[in-house]
């Protein structure tokens, strides 16, 4: 009998839809049907049970081909790479659960690695802005229940977060928003007339790269000061019109995306958006939220903050302490500066998503990919270690774009023998300890280690 599993979380985007219904075959090996998911989410579940999944680690041979090896061999290889490197980089975690991230942090600390996640090339700018200016935000249910004005700025949920608008922002009827879309004003600010802009009440076409100037104009008119006739390609009249709507909202949310984080000024575009949100709270209630990309890309920021105090770009090479300064300890900068000498690509695809120049630099050193799937990174690695797909084969906690933890379920069994990220990292940690003991390698904090007696775990 096929089995119907309800309330399944979707391992695609930061919307973290948790209302999927997945029907799986009797033997728990195949997905037969996925209900409620968007086209992309649907594809993830279908792909999990497709042919061609690999179930053993693969090691690059001198002739350039891959050879299957055992998990024990792969763990040993990975551990030795970490020990040997003066400064290994462990990057990714776009599709890992929090348990896996916690285990990876333990490995990074032990190995004196730099630990970084996809935010480094995505919403890292948001972190920089939050460091400087805070983050007046809310959970998505607040937006659904209260918001009468929604701004999408430099974000395009119609493409990147397909169910965002229907679940939380534009369309749903909430407690104080019983009229749904009819009761809301939607403002889209973007240089492109996107599919999201098509559903907007007001579309503001900002000149690419001049968002900061436009925010500055909004803030200036909100404070009652005058501005030039045109700013960032937008006419003064439209700026005044939108500013009035923002001030008169009962509750508003600004959802912003890569349009701010990836263009000139990066963090400052977000920084001034936060300043504007703060200003608007002198008039009414406004909140702001980063449209985080992957379903659990908020996760590493959360987990590593409680572990090290930093959300990303965490240099643990000193082992006693961590240090963070994007621009220096961020993956692409480390790559371009040749500042790391081993690369772990975990649950992401740096091969496809880093600028190719950065890939070339990293490729000078050992490159290990930990990912369920074949991807660009796996195809240029020295070692590819497959793991179970989180949210499909591996359960666990993930953090939604609003940092709300969602408990994900398992719907399929992983291919025979394939382990989770968490187990893999625990085994690498264990193996590093063993090798260090065998070879008498002393830690930076070796003196201190001598004072540790019995550790009783949970």
């Amino acid at each position, binding site marked *: 009998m096929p089995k119907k599993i309800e309330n399944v979380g979707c391992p695609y985007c930061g919307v973290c839809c948790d209302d999927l219904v997945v029907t799986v075959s009797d033997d728990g090996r195949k997905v037969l049907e996925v209900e409620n998911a968007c086209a992309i989410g649907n594809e993830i579940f279908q792909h999990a049970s497709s042919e061609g999944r690999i179930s053993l680690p693969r090691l690059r041979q001198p002739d350039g081909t891959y050879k299957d090896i055992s998990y024990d061999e792969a763990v040993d290889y990975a551990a030795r790479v970490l020990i040997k*490197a*003066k*400064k290994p980089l462990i990057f990714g975690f776009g599709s890992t659960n929090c348990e896996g991230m916690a285990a990876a942090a333990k490995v990074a600390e032990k*190995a*004196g690695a730099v630990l970084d996640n996809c935010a480094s090339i995505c919403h890292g700018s948001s972190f*920089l802005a939050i*460091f*400087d200016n805070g983050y007046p935000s809310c959970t998505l249910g607040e937006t659904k229940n209260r918001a009468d004005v929604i701004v999408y700025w430099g974000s395009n949920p119609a493409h990147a977060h397909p169910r965002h608008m229907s679940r939380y922002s534009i369309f749903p009827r909430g407690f104080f928003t019983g009229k749904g879309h009819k009761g809301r004003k939607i403002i889209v600010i973007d240089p492109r007339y996107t599919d999201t802009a098509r559903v907007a009440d007001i579309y503001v076409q900002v000149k690419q790269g*001049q968002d*900061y*100037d436009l*925010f*500055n*104009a*909004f*803030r*200036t008119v*909100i*404070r009652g*000061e*005058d*501005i*030039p006739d045109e*700013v960032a390609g937008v006419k003064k009249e439209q700026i005044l019109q939108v500013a009035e709507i923002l001030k008169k909202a009962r509750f508003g949310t600004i959802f912003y995306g890569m349009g701010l984080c990836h263009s*000139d*000024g990066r963090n*400052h575009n977000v*920084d*001034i958006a936060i*300043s504007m949100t703060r*200003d608007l709270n002198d008039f009414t209630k406004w909140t702001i939220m980063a449209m985080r990309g992957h379903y659990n890309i908020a996760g590493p920021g959360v987990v590593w903050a409680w572990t090290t105090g930093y959300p990303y770009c965490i240099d643990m*090479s*000193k*082992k006693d302490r961590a240090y*963070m*300064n*994007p*621009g*220096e300890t961020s993956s692409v900068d480390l790559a371009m*500066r*040749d*500042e*790391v*000498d081993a690369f772990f690509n975990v649950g992401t695809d740096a091969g496809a998503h880093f600028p190719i120049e950065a890939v070339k630099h990293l490729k000078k050193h050992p490159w290990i990919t930990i990912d369920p799937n074949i991807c660009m990174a796996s195809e240029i690695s020295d070692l590819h270690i497959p793991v179970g797909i989180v949210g499909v084969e591996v359960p666990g906690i993930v953090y939604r774009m609003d940092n709300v933890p969602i408990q994900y379920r398992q719907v399929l069994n992983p291919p025979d023998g394939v382990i989770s990220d968490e187990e893999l990292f625990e085994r690498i940690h264990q193996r590093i300890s063993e090798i260090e003991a065998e070879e008498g390698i002393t830690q*930076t904090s070796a003196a201190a280690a001598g004072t540790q007696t019995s550790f009783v775990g949970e």
Partner: protein
Amino acid sequence: MKTVTLTLNKQPELYLECNDITPDAFAGKTPAEIAAIEIWEGKQKIPLGDFFTVEGSAGATPAETKIVVAGDCTRVKRIGQQMTDGEIVIESDVDMYIGGWMKGGTIHVKGNADSFCGIGMEGGELIIDGDAGHHVGAAPRGEWRGMKGGVIRIGGNVGNDTATFINGGTIVIGGDADIHISTHGEGGTVIVKGNAKGRVGGQMVKGEIYVFGTIENPLPGFKKIETVERDVEGVQAQFDHFIGDLGERHPKSKGQPVYAHLYVKA
């Protein structure tokens, strides 16, 4: 004043972190003791003497100690970090954080410096003959108490984020500046002899900026109020005087709002 000369005699595979190359750390030490000071390459701690030859001798106090660093230091970070007194001369290009958090003394880089030089500076003088990277004299991440004092002079161009959260002190840029100058500033002075690209004084509460060249994209939050005659860095000239950032909060002093001032050569 006594001089210690360090010569980098081999290149690291990665980068060297040398926050103890300061008169403070060297003062009162023999060359052998200086050679034993620990520096870092990645997770490895190495004696300074493994990479540098140490000649000459240090003074008894930081004030009496001058350090000359020779050899190609493109891959050496953090020289002069938190130094309080004395002098450092770097003969070549140098990597990040030069003069970071420095409180006194002088550093002279004869080549270019990478990003974060003079970050969190409190006092002293940092001179870079060539270009500097991003975040010159800026605050470290999350810190709202930025540059408090001292002088930074850059001969060439700088990247973005000069003087973010500046509270005091002076930065003089000989060439052009990329976007973001004195963002969130609450004091201090930045002088750009060349052109500024844009976002000059955004979110700025108070402080001063002078631009001798042009601003490619001026912010709408700055309003011209007058044209004034000023003597800046020995140059007497007419400047258009703007106040701003009108989008930002402005405290009152004796009943009058306090603004940041931007002067652009007329």
